[in-house]
Every structure is written in structure tokens, then in C-alpha cells.
């Protein structure tokens, strides 16, 4: 049994939670119907009115909201309050299309701070901690989201943001950072750089890390925990819903508790839109039931996940989502087989000594899909004989093929030659897209 930030909510009975959700849902639906033409039109199209949504059991009647809807209504088409009540805007990067913008009222920011604070407390955080925030600040929700939660708890916040890794490490060492928050790939980079600088984990005080904004694996967790001497927790969030803190891991580390008193989750079949029973894998959908400025209803995240109400040893009753396996739009279809980059990462890490820096290249040559995985050779993998290097290459090849079910070419690269990303990891180059 650990500490809680908001025990009443985090340990509520299912009955209590569902009646609260039902009340909040019906209120929110009524409000957006009245204030947002987009929702009103969509509901009229489906032949429903706010009176049809009385409880969580009616949730499935509502239409979905897709990312494209956010682009189509850009910038303020989905805002449900007058713009003068909005106190903050955030935006998600427009790498794959037009950017999207979201807004927060003062109360929305409080909700967000509370969600982030729950995550920090679940990771063992208290007001005595020094919170090192290496998420980017700015329009990206990562930095300010965690910052707000940490400040609310009374922690000493160190708002480092991203970049200048050597300086970050000196700050961790000199300021005595006890908690760190960043993307898992950036944490790996920090760990590697620290090793190169000759700084050991005994010289720093980090006890826990909250790593999010991209999917990562159990193997990566073990590597980070070992290299940085901390306990690594997953934290999940997305700009469209609120930012980091939508769900978070407890000490059991078997999935992330969702702040379901604010965000109701569903799992659907991404092809049919059908709601799937608890425990089945599918696309994660969220409905915001407390937000004022930007309350998305049935928003399709494109993240693939599984929900679970299994009893958790931490005492929290909040529903858990198992680590997203990948994103519906990260999924590669190679020779007709569905491949997630995270599966390839798992395979790479299962080979002893292999560190997770890799890049996937997909191409089409003579109408055949080709898959190449570039892997950086680590010191542990390197040997002076060609034979042992080829043995490692073949072991990786076999591990990858056994996980994804199709053949891959493995290319061994010199360390630190593949590009690092401080924001979301982009591990794939799909040249087929350029050909189509």
C-alpha cells in the first residue's frame, strides 16, 4: 500500500466511480451540445439528444471524434467556453499534417496539475523531492504538465527542458535531482552520455524517473533502472486529452492507472468501431468528463492498448491500461504482416548487450517489401573477430524474425551514428510512401 494524492478518487469502489462518471458525462454532453455546433450537428446526425446520455452505459451511442476533426475545426472550433475564459493554449506538432491546438481554463489547469500530482505520488514523490523536468517546455504539453503537478505537491522543480545533455547531467549531480521526467529515449541518451562522462549512478541521487510521450519496453525499463540507479515509471498522456497524467504507473508496474474520474476509457475495434469487452486489445478511446475548455468526447487516440480491472497491490481501484503496444498509425504493414516498431525493440533488447538504438528502413524493391534494421554496435557486442560479430548479427536476426514473423536484414552500425530524437522517437523510414 502506497501513498495516494487523492485517496477518495484513486481508491473509490466501482459503484462510486460509475455513478460519478455517469453524472459528469451527462453534464458534459449537455454542455457541449449547447455550446459547440460540431457536437450538436454530429449528435443530430446520429439522431440522439443529451437526454439519451444518462450514464456510462450510454457512452457507445455518441459519435467518435477523430484527429482529422481537430484539424478541420482548427483553431477554436471545438472549444466549449468563451475564449476569454481560456488561460492557456498548447499545440501538438504538425509533423504529419496540420497542427492542432487545445485550450485550458483555470479549472482545467487545476485538474491537469492534480492528475500529474497523482502520477508523481504514485512514483514515490513527496514535497521533499527535487523534480528534474527534461520534457520540452513550450507548446508541447510534457514540460509544463509535469511542472504543474510537481509544484502543486511543493516539490523543488528544476525546469531544465530538453537539450545540452552534458549540462543536464551536471545539474542532476550538483542540484541533487531525485526525480526525473523525460522521454524514455532521451533518458537512454542521458544514461549513455553520463557513462561517457565517467559519472556513475552512485554519484547522482535520482530515485525515480517518469518516462512517457512514446512507447517503450520492459527491457528498456531494466536498462534505464540499471544505468541510472532509479525505478522507472511509465506515464501516459496526450495533448488532445490533457497532456501527461491521463494515466500513470504505480509501484506494481503492471499497467497504468487511468484518472477515470476525469477521462473515461474505452477499447474499440479500430476497423468496425465496435466497443470490445474488458481485456481485449484494440484502439484506446477517451471521453473527457470534467474539462471545460476542450472536452473531447469519444476521442480515438490511435493507440493500441488493453484495459484491466484486476485488483492492484497498490490499493488503487482506478482502471489500468496495459502499455500501448504501438499506434495504429505507427503500424507498418510489411509483406502483409502487421509490424510495430516496439516489437522490433523488444527483440533487439532480448539479445544480450544490445542497446536500443536502432532505425528501421522499409522499402519496396521489385514489388517486394524489404525490411532493414540498422543497429548500433555497443561495446558489449563488439569483438575483434568477424565470426563473433556475425554470430551476434545472426542472433539479432533470429530474435527479430521470431517476434515479427518475417525476415529482416540487420546492418551493424558504429555507435552514435544513428540520429537521436529528444522529442518523440522516430525510428522508421518508410521509403514506400515516397514511391506511392
Amino acid at each position, binding site marked *: 500500500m502506497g501513498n495516494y494524492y487523492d485517496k477518495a478518487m484513486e481508491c473509490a469502489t466501482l459503484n462510486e466511480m460509475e455513478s460519478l462518471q455517469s453524472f459528469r458525462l451527462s453534464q458534459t454532453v449537455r454542455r457541449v451540445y449547447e455550446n459547440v455546433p460540431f457536437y450538436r450537428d454530429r449528435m443530430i446526425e446520429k439522431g440522439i439528444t443529451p437526454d439519451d446520455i444518462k450514464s456510462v452505459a450510454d457512452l457507445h451511442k455518441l459519435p467518435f471524434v477523430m484527429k482529422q476533426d481537430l484539424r478541420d475545426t482548427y483553431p477554436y472550433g471545438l472549444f466549449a467556453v468563451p475564449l476569454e475564459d481560456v488561460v492557456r493554449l498548447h499545440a501538438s506538432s504538425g509533423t504529419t499534417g496540420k497542427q492542432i491546438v487545445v485550450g485550458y481554463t483555470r479549472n482545467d489547469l487545476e485538474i491537469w496539475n492534480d492528475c500529474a500530482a497523482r502520477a508523481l505520488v504514485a512514483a514515490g514523490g513527496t514535497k521533499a523531492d527535487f523534480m528534474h523536468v527534461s520534457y520540452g517546455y513550450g507548446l508541447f504539453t510534457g514540460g509544463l504538465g509535469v511542472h504543474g503537478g510537481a509544484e502543486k505537491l511543493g516539490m523543488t522543480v528544476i525546469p531544465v527542458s530538453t537539450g545540452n545533455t552534458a549540462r543536464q547531467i551536471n545539474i542532476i549531480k550538483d542540484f541533487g535531482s531525485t526525480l526525473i521526467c523525460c522521454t524514455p529515449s532521451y533518458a537512454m541518451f542521458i544514461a549513455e552520455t553520463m557513462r561517457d562522462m565517467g559519472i556513475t549512478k552512485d554519484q547522482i541521487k535520482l530515485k525515480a524517473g517518469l518516462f512517457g510521450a512514446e512507447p517503450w519496453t520492459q527491457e528498456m525499463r531494466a536498462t534505464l533502472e540499471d544505468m541510472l540507479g532509479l525505478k522507472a515509471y511509465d506515464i501516459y498522456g496526450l495533448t488532445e486529452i490533457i497532456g501527461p497524467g491521463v494515466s500513470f504507473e504505480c509501484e506494481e508496474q503492471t499497467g497504468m492507472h487511468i484518472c477515470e474520474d476525469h477521462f473515461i476509457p474505452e477499447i474499440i475495434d479500430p476497423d468496425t468501431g465496435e466497443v470490445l469487452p474488458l481485456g481485449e486489445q484494440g484502439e484506446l478511446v477517451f471521453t473527457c468528463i470534467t474539462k471545460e475548455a476542450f472536452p473531447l468526447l469519444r476521442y480515438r487516440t490511435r493507440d493500441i492498448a488493453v484495459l484491466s480491472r484486476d485488483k492492484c497491490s497498490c490499493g488503487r481501484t482506478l482502471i489500468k491500461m496495459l502499455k500501448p503496444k504501438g499506434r495504429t498509425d505507427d503500424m507498418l504493414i510489411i509483406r502483409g504482416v502487421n509490424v510495430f516498431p516496439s516489437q522490433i525493440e523488444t527483440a533487439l533488447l532480448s539479445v544480450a548487450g544490445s542497446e536500443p538504438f536502432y532505425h528501421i528502413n522499409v522499402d519496396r524493391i521489385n514489388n517486394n517489401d524489404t525490411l532493414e534494421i540498422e543497429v548500433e554496435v555497443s561495446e558489449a557486442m563488439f569483438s*575483434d*573477430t568477424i565470426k563473433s560479430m556475425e554470430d551476434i548479427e545472426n542472433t539479432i536476426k533470429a530474435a527479430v524474425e521470431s517476434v515479427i514473423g518475417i525476415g529482416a536484414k540487420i546492418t551493424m552500425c558504429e555507435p552514435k551514428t544513428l540520429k537521436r530524437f529528444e522529442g518523440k522517437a522516430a525510428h522508421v523510414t518508410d521509403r514506400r510512401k515516397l514511391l506511392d
Partner: protein
Amino acid sequence: MLIKQLSVFVENKKGRLSAITDILRQSEIDIRALSVADTKDFGILRLIVNDVDKAYTALKNGECLVSLTDVIAVQITDRPGGLADAMDILSSAEISVEYMYAFISKSDGLASVILRVDDNQKAQNVLSDKFKLLTQAEISA
């Protein structure tokens, strides 16, 4: 009487080998012997140099993947069959040779062979009766 060989991982990319030799030139390292083993995608550069520590540090600082390997340097008598004799001795002692490469030593102009074997201790014992094994100091001189 083992000597240290530098082993460097090299991607088969234009300019990588010259980048590495450039690092050594900048640090004023003398290369005594060298061999490259390669596959389609990567190679391993093996180097015997006058100053191992300095070369190792320079390559590390140049972000190269480098390791140190213990090898044996055997001076081969200048007569037909000199190398074959050494190989016979190793094979009758059931020592396998992973790789080897030859060089001419600077001081006396005699041919020597760098041997990477699976059992250094045993190889030194059986070879030292009939052959002169070079020391690190002799290589560095």
C-alpha cells in the same frame, strides 16, 4: 610475451578508414602493422602501434568503437618454411588460429607474424622454444 592489438569497428562507408587513420596521424601514432577484415557491411581494423595507450585514448575520443586484444608477435626465421614450422607447432598443440597477418619489423628488417589464437598461454609455451616472440617494448621501440 603478449602484445596489445587495437581492434576498431568500421562501417563500410566512404571515408571511415581514412577518418580513423587521420585520428592516428593527428596523435602522431606510428602504425607498425595493420590488417582489415571485412564483410559486406562492416569491417574490423586491427592495428599494432608504437604507443597503445595514446592511440586507444585518441580513438575513444574520436568516438570510435575500439577494444584491446591480446595477440602474439612471432619473429619468423628468414628461410623457406619458417612460417610453416610455426603453424605445425600450433596445430600439433591443437591451438587454432583465428587470424594472422605479417609485417616487417623496423629495426632489423625481419618478418614477423601477428597471431590471434584461442589459447595465448599455450601458444606462447610451444612457440617460444623455436621462435623469438616480440615484446611490447620491442614493438614500440
